[in-house]
């Protein structure tokens, strides 16, 4: 059980996402896989300086017992960015699907070249 730490889980998540990006031809699955990678990286950063027993840095917490506040502040930003990029790529995907009628990277190329 001692191997199941947040950092190891985050790295495993990252590589699961990487597998999805490399192997899956479906565009939706690509978007999902890239997101899994993104969350892996975010989880890694949040837990980076975590010591067991530390408490959230809210209000007037003692500095000694407080968890490192900087990664938490940064990762809020990263999560928001991840959501917006995902939203934009899903929007583009919907238009692409309406135009070419396929969710497969290779079929999209074939249909573009045919025209």
């Amino acid at each position, binding site marked *: 059980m001692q191997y199941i730490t947040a950092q190891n889980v985050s790295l495993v998540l990252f590589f699961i996402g990487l597998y999805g*990006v*490399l192997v899956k031809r479906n565009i939706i699955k690509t978007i999902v896989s890239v997101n899994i*990678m993104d969350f*892996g990286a975010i989880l890694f950063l949040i837990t980076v300086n975590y010591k067991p027993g530390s408490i959230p840095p809210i209000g007037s917490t003692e500095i000694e017992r407080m968890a490192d506040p900087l990664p938490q502040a940064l990762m809020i930003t990263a999560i928001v960015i991840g959501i917006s990029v995902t939203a934009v790529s899903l929007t583009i995907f919907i238009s692409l699907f309406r135009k070419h009628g396929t969710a497969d990277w290779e079929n999209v190329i074939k249909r573009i070249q045919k025209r």
Partner: protein
Amino acid sequence: MIPLYALVILPVLAATAGYFLPRSIYKHVLILVQLVHLLMVVLVFIEVRTGGVIRHYVGGWSDGIGIALVADTLSITMVLLASLLFLLLFLFNYGKRYMDNIFQFLFILLQGVSIGVFLAGDLFHVYVLIELTTITISILIMYKRDKQALYDGLLYILLNLFGVTFFLLGVGFIYKTFGVLDMALIAERIQLLDDTRGLALPYALLLSAIGLKAAILPLFSWLPSAHGALTAPSAVSAVLSGLQVKVGIFLFLRVQWVFSGVFETTGFFFVVALLTAVAGFTIALVHHDVKLILAFSTVSQIGLIMMGLNAGTEVAYFGSVFHIINHALFKALLFITAGVITHAVGTRDITRIRNIAPKAPLFAVATLLAMLGITGGPFFNGSVSKYLIQAGLAGQPGEVLIYIVNLGTIMVFVKYAQMYLPRRNPAASQQAADEGVGDVVVETEPHGAEQPIPGRAFAMKAVALLIGAVCLAAGVLAAPLMRLLFDHDLPVSGAFYLEKTLIYVVTLAIGIALYYGVVHRSRFLVAVREYRFTFNTICLLYTGFFASLLCYTYIFA
């Protein structure tokens, strides 16, 4: 004294505040804002050159916690270049029909964000701004929304999102090791580490993401579909090729500086840069689409710049930095003139564009100026920077390689210069059609169908000629310019120009002979033109690049 964050947020705030103004007023407001911005950048530039590096912490936090903005000689020069280029391209777009409020908003937003990347002092800040440029550019690429624009946009955004997750994970490892994200502090603390091998992983993670942005060898497959996007407005292509790849190179310099003394990877990157340069001009020779030729020529020039940066000598370094500026100027000019010329002729197929001089005389002259610049014609800016890169490699085997790369560039532009030739006989074009080269999309938009916006032609001509003149001026006045920008003395004399002219003429002759004698006739690599990497293949190449960089860093550096 002007605070540095003003340079970043002024364009963003102005673009947001004026968004609901009527289109014609908004346009003039933005031009005014850009002029003010350029003036501010010049003031900050003077301050940096007289008073040294400016560091600014947003929010009044102490070192290492707040968001740092840094203006040193290199970054403020890049900011100056960005500000100038965005202003010129915005003016070029003055009378374009696609210049609605959303386009103007995104264009100015991109200006602020790109300048932010150049000024950013910490890694997380860089990450945020890179993501912002990704979103903005992907929408700008698809702006005309037809044919394959959607595919190009989706490929661009997902590939960059994929690459930037590597960057974020690298930032995580850096934070884990050092507890800070400020690049100057990391560079200090890195010297205190006993065992630096563990840093190989974050180093490879960061640099592979930056390599994707800079479009070096296995990672450039996204570039043609974005820069050469069939439907992207030419000013957008000019910004992408002129500035956005330079963002990658700039970050490469920054991160290499942070890790200097720990990892010595110049050998690896020199080889990669050489392969990039060769692959760039080879593929450019294969294609027939004007914009794709220019896009792949960018890849080849990136390779040249990276070769200079990794040569390990100061002369080559300054040559490369100067070439970054020069390339931004003449490639932007090439893209905007290509846009005008293809529009006037009605096709983007280089084998069918002929005799442009009478059709668009002024743009033909501007294209000629830009071509002389990029091929390193005597007295043009390209010749000085290429000479410096070459002088920095003198005595190494790399010197010969620069000649080969330059020959390749000349061959590409010998091909590009076909557009000046008189119309060829119908038999030959029939033969070309049989070979299946006629598959390049013909622009269907009829010219002059609507009432043109006043000032349109004048703005386009003035900007094109101005950039062309700057190319020539930067070459003739290279020595004072280098002293002004980098405080670096240039070893240039009259004999230098004579020698350069001779070399240029000889290389040009060889280039023409090789192109029309060998490349033009052979049907080699037609398959390359047809072949397109799928998304999965590009990602696989990316992961392979990351893995090999990691292995190299871990074992050799």
